[in-house]
């Protein structure tokens, strides 16, 4: 049931066309599958293998390397608390403990109602705004225990319209209009672009006379 939807197949084909080799599209396509179902199912991986012409094992191999891909259902909201050094120095670990108590789960766990999955994560590039966290990869900066409780309440009550469900990453996609594209260079092509050849410096001998 969780093969890619017809709309997503169209999108997948467009994405594949952007890379010189189809396998390069694997990570974006796995994200697409995760966006559709909230996680990456075996069916979706098989479908992606068909679309890109690689084996399902290769898709799984890639998928399993990257932390963001979840191969089973997780909460509607992934709450990722940074405990790396700058956040640790500013209470990141204490915040994580507070979150564990508030949600009643340990990192990696999901609440019974399926709302939240908690993770303790590595530096998320907001170190000057420590401690910080992401909910479905949207940031909350300099957050304290009260702020955390309010965040959880807001998420439970549906007040955070700005945060999409787990799986949805960027909501704006690049559209490469074939009419406007230069044409992605295949590794099988040889020879420099004509515009470059036309602009190359004249050989030394000609320079002398110029």
């Amino acid at each position, binding site marked *: 049931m969780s093969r890619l939807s017809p709309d997503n197949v169209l999108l997948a084909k467009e994405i594949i066309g952007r890379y010189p080799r189809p396998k390069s599209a694997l990570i974006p396509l796995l994200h697409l599958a995760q966006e559709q179902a909230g996680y990456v199912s075996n069916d979706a991986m098989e479908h992606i293998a068909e679309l890109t012409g690689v084996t399902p094992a290769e898709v799984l191999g890639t998928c399993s*390397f990257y932390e963001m891909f979840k191969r089973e259902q997780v909460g509607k909201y992934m709450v990722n608390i940074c405990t790396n050094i700058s956040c640790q120095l500013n209470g990141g670990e204490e915040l994580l403990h507070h979150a564990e108590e508030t949600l009643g789960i340990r990192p990696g766990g999901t609440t019974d109602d399926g709302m939240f999955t908690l993770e303790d994560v590595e530096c998320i590039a907001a170190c000057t705004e420590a401690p910080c966290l992401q909910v479905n990869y949207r940031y909350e900066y300099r957050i304290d225990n009260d702020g955390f409780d309010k965040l959880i309440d807001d998420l439970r009550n549906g007040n955070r319209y700005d945060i999409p469900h787990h799986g949805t990453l960027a909501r704006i996609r*690049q559209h490469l209009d074939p009419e406007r594209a230069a044409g992605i*260079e295949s590794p099988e092509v*040889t020879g420099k672009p004509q515009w470059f050849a036309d602009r*190359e410096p004249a050989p030394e001998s000609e320079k002398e006379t110029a």
Partner: protein
Amino acid sequence: MATNAYVEHAPGYVDNVGPKVVTSRFGDPESYKLERSEATGGYGALRAVLQMKPDEVHGQVRDAVLLGRGGAGFPAGVKWGFMPPVWPRYLVVNGDESEPGTYKDRLLMERDPHQLIEGCLITCYALGLNTCFLYVRGEMALAQERIAEALNDAYEAGYVGRNIMGTDVSIDVVLTWGAGAYIVGEETALIESLEGNRGMPRLKPPFFPAAKGLYMKPTIVNNVETLANLPWIMLNGPEAYKQFGSEKSPGTRMLAISGHVKRPGVYEVEQGKVTFRDLFYGDNYCQGIRDDNDLKMFIPGGGSAPWFFEDQLDLPLEAADVGAAGSMLGSGAIVVMDETTDAVRACLRVVRFFARESCGKCTPCREGTTWEEKILQRILDGHGRPEDIDLLLDIGSQISPGPYPVAAFEAAGETAVPFPPKQTTICPLGPSSVAPITSAIRRFRDEFEAKIQAPEEVPA
């Protein structure tokens, strides 16, 4: 108050005195929009560059001595020259920013994506290539959105794609993104990831990307901040660029200063001109340590960098000087720790990062980093063994043989070991895990010993 993190800019940037090369638009809350970029000269450098010969553009970048901002500090113009005359060739932009403490590329991508795109196009033009992949870290959803929107607008306006600005030049810039793995920031792992594989580094040699990169074709990998400098350089010329910074390190750098300072933030700073003391205590910068505490130690260049102390405060922000003193400026990530910091706990946290992020391809790194973490954890938990300190140093020497880079400790009469470390591994990640261990043990051996000898005094 319902905050809307989605439309808000990432905070943290401090609009400071001094020249602005890459952050000049940061004051404008809508700086990411094409019309705002155009109104302040956006794509003007590209227009001028298209009138020049590609090799002139390359020459100007070489003359500007634009040092890479991704960590290693290698001059971009020189790296570009390593490409053999083979086509096709590719440009891959490294927007995977995930070194602990590093926070600058995300700001550049979210706040001024057009500046970065213009930098990509200038590079492609100089090198005669027509396909650029812009790889953004998976966790950075807003950066991905901002770049996608910027690319859509720039294609529409004819700045990217077929027949750029009505010329015969055609270049594509393709947004691509990761899915959570620090190691993918290493350039050969980035290329593997872009080929759709597990993000594991390749052995150098023979796989230097400039010669054998993406699909085994010549590939230049440059950091986001490196390329963001190009529009300014091409508009104002290398001589003007060299007015900023020092002779060895021209221009500015974006520095994220975090941890125990009163005003943490991301500052654009002239290279070589200020010292760490200026940054931590200066009114224009961080304004002192929190609660006026004493400084205990600081990391000068990201989690991979050996630690510095009071003795190193007067060093200038100059790569050569910092390297000789036993560490690196790395990715512009400075983490300040005050006297209340537990050295063992901080050391463990950084080591744990490397243990979690090791890709597992080489044994000394895969086994060594997890073992280091385990030992540090038991010391912290009060179950350390007397031999653990030497064991930690021994494991370190298996990953990185020989004296490991470390700062001088004048009071103990110990001199500095200069950067970089040696490695028994494929990439520098494994050896990086040794940095916090060697740094902390040389300085604070007594803290380790106290935890081992008096476990009952360690709070749970």
